[in-house]
């Protein structure tokens, strides 16, 4: 047999583990949903009110926010119901913060799978994002309920909402992948993540409008990619006075894209040693 002519389906060599990566990702596409489906099924097992939790959680947070920022801190609401002002920002923020912390732990909680079976590792953190996306959609329904309650008619700009949703997804994917792979090696991040999420809430314009930031600092402020997203959400949902600060948005988009590519690059680079060090 002429060995040189032999064709093999798969060649495993150092550094070539990821050659069919994107193809494999496609082959395992159903796993994204299966893992997300598992997490959703499991989350409300052995709870009495079950799925109702997914509505109660964001609702409670919104009420707390409205009271603290609207009543106690007395921040300006720019003529829109304060609850909606807060809620419009809380939607992307909640989505980001829960996805970010879930993704950071995802590889470790699934360590058993990583060391026993092959599949593109990217699936694990991404599927946690899908779970949180479901929560996001539920929260969106609550927002609609809120609008009906306050008899608030959203402006036409709401048609741009999907664009900002995509931007949120990109931020989550980039930062989530990066933090997930870091966490595999350095468990220090287990302590850093909750801090980032806490702190991020105060430096992002969730409880206030970003117009309270002095004009000269706004560009610098937009380095935080969530600023662009949150302002975008406000603009889409509330319209009116919530103008988009264009240079800031462009900066946010640039930072976001950088985050995405860096996140994927770092993940792919460290992924091959996950099973050895986890």
């Amino acid at each position, binding site marked *: 047999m002429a060995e040189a002519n032999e064709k093999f389906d*798969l060649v*495993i060599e150092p550094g070539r583990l990821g050659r069919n990566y994107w193809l494999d990702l496609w082959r395992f596409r159903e796993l994204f949903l*299966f893992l997300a489906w598992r997490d959703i099924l*499991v989350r409300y*097992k*052995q709870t009495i009110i079950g799925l109702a939790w997914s509505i109660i959680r964001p609702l409670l947070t919104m009420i707390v926010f409205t009271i603290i920022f609207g009543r106690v801190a007395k921040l300006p609401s720019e003529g829109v119901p304060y609850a909606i002002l807060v809620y419009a920002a809380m939607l992307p923020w909640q989505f980001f913060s829960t996805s970010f912390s879930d993704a950071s732990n995802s590889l470790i909680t699934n360590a058993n*799978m990583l060391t*026993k079976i092959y599949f593109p590792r990217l699936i694990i953190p991404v599927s946690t994002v899908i779970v949180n996306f479901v929560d996001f959609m539920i929260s969106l329904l609550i927002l609609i309920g809120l609008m009906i309650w306050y008899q608030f008619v959203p402006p036409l700009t709401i048609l741009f909402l999907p664009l900002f949703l995509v931007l949120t997804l990109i931020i989550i994917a980039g930062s989530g992948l990066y933090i997930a792979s870091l966490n595999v090696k350095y468990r220090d991040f287990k302590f850093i993540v909750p801090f980032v999420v806490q702190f991020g809430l105060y430096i992002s314009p969730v409880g206030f409008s970003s117009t309270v930031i002095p004009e000269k600092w706004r560009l610098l402020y937009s380095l935080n990619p969530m600023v662009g997203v949150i302002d975008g959400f406000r603009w889409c949902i509330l319209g009116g006075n919530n103008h988009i600060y264009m240079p800031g948005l462009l900066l946010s988009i640039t930072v976001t894209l950088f985050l995405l590519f860096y996140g994927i690059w770092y993940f792919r680079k460290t992924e091959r040693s996950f*099973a050895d060090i986890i």
Partner: protein
Amino acid sequence: MSVVIKAEQLSKSYIIRHHGEKRHDALRDVITENVKGTLLKTKSLFSGKSGFPSNSREEFWALDDINFEVLKGDRVGVIGRNGAGKSTLLKLLSRITEPTVGKISINGRIASLLEVGTGFHAELSGRENVYLNGAILGMHRTEIRKKFDEIVAFAEVEKFLDTPVKRYSSGMYVRLAFAVAAYLESEILVVDEVLAVGDTEFQKKCLGKMQNVSREEGRTVLFVSHNMAAISKLCNKGILLNKGRIVKDSDIGTVVDTYISTCFKNDSYLMEGGNSDKEIYFERIFLSRDKIQPINTFSFSDDIFCIFEINGRKLNKETTLTFIVRDRNLNPIFSEHHLVKEIKGRLIATIPMKILLPGKYYLQSMLHIPNVRFLDNNEEYISFSVEETGSKNAIYNADLGFVNIPVLWEEK
């Protein structure tokens, strides 16, 4: 026959880090050392390089220059002692980790079962877990649906399909998990010691299924086990590994024989010259009839004295001597534990006469702190045999087990 798996110069190294090797004489040194270390670590964090730079690193080759070929339809048994590199080889084949050097070429879809029930979730029902596990193994939903009934029938869990698997007995759990993997459509099946769990009946069933898979469907099977009986039955080829290298690659009979005879120094009834680097070690182990003369053949009505001579420099209050008596296929028959009280001395364990039935046995011995670490894990098993000199089984020409127990009878 075409080659389905071909490994060339396959090697895998791991970095082992040693702790507590550095000595700091002054607090100043400690601080500078730590600051330097932290800076380096932070640097490596952002550059994505494999971090933790340290002098106390050592390379360990779990697999070292492995070359072999597997033909289509072969059933290959991979055997070797603990730490020989079997699991690493399977991990490389399954693409869980990548080789350091060399390459593996594979023809056909490969399914690996390194553990039963990977990804099973205790809270989910049997039905849900079949779909989930199937997806993790790379099956499509339609494929799982098509085989669902067969899987459930094989696992014998029809009645409990909608019960969370946390309420399953361990046997049911293993059966279901194995079934999913066994019905995976793949040309190559890689199986690690999964049959160690589950009852005998099910083990037989799994072995049968694996045989079917190979003989009738022409699939290739790679199988790791310590159970020589199962390996001999299932496999036609064997690969023997020792310390990361291939010792023998041949038909299964030869390989199993080599394993038993070379790895366990056949008829070495005396073990001498332990490793004096260790804090406590065996200086000499032998079997005797009179506590003086080492011998390796006993009669059924002999007391067997196992003599362990221990030496060392440090004794932990939990240091335990354990010995295991194994049958000719290295399955454990019984074991005994004894707390070591003297750092230097001779311990004699007596296996009373008329306990071990005639046959060939191996004695494995180790010094350890239970569940913490091994102090001296003697790798050479001592072989000995018990000759038939009138046991109650003497008149039967059959395999009647290994031990004689003084059973009491009553007749009324």
